[in-house]
């Protein structure tokens, strides 16, 4: 599974993209696995209410299942326009 990070999340984790083997059932489970990896991840994902997630390029919720998903992207609230 491909995982992407954007904006300050990318900077805090120090990585734009990585491939992860995960057996997580939901986005939230995946976040728990990531937080366990490293203190940088733990800090970056400390408050998921200030983060957004997209599954295969579609906005999703942290409770959503990720079975079959190929690309998970995490990022702060968007500031376009």
């Amino acid at each position, binding site marked *: 599974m491909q995982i992407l990070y954007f904006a300050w999340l990318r900077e805090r984790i120090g990585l734009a993209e990585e491939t992860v083997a995960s057996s997580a059932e939901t986005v939230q489970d995946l976040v728990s696995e990531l937080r366990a990896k490293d203190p940088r991840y733990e800090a970056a994902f400390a408050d998921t209410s200030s983060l957004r997630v997209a599954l295969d390029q579609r906005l999703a919720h942290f409770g959503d299942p990720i079975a079959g998903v190929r690309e998970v*992207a995490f990022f702060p609230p*968007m*500031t*376009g326009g």
Partner: protein
Amino acid sequence: MMQVRVQNVAFDFAQEAKNFASSVQDCGALVTFTGIVRNNDAGDLLALEIEHYPVMTQSALENIAGQAMEKWSLVDCLIIHRFGRLALGEPIMMVATAAPHRAAAFASADFMMDYLKSRAPFWKKEVTDAGAEWVAAKDSDEQALSRW
């Protein structure tokens, strides 16, 4: 019909508005909105850097434009959004809407801006002499969506 462009290069909003207008038929009302890089309150902005999520951006904007087309039976609409480094005074993005009557042209442009602000994967960073800082999303932008 319904153009969406995500690009690094600068654009001339007036020329884009002209091209858009000349491509539409049977339109009584045309609205354009242009967002421009503006100085920060401290007055020391050097540039704006816009990051985006390339694979997702185009489809997110097409989704917003498609919703506007359908909801207000538009004749046509346009979204252009830049990414990369932008200088003070440069256009960041624009939307244009063409409709038979003014209410639809105004409301659909307003709607597209609200959705674009909070649902399209762009992130702005302000570059100043003191360093660079990510722009925080405003609660009011998220709340604005409840209008539609």
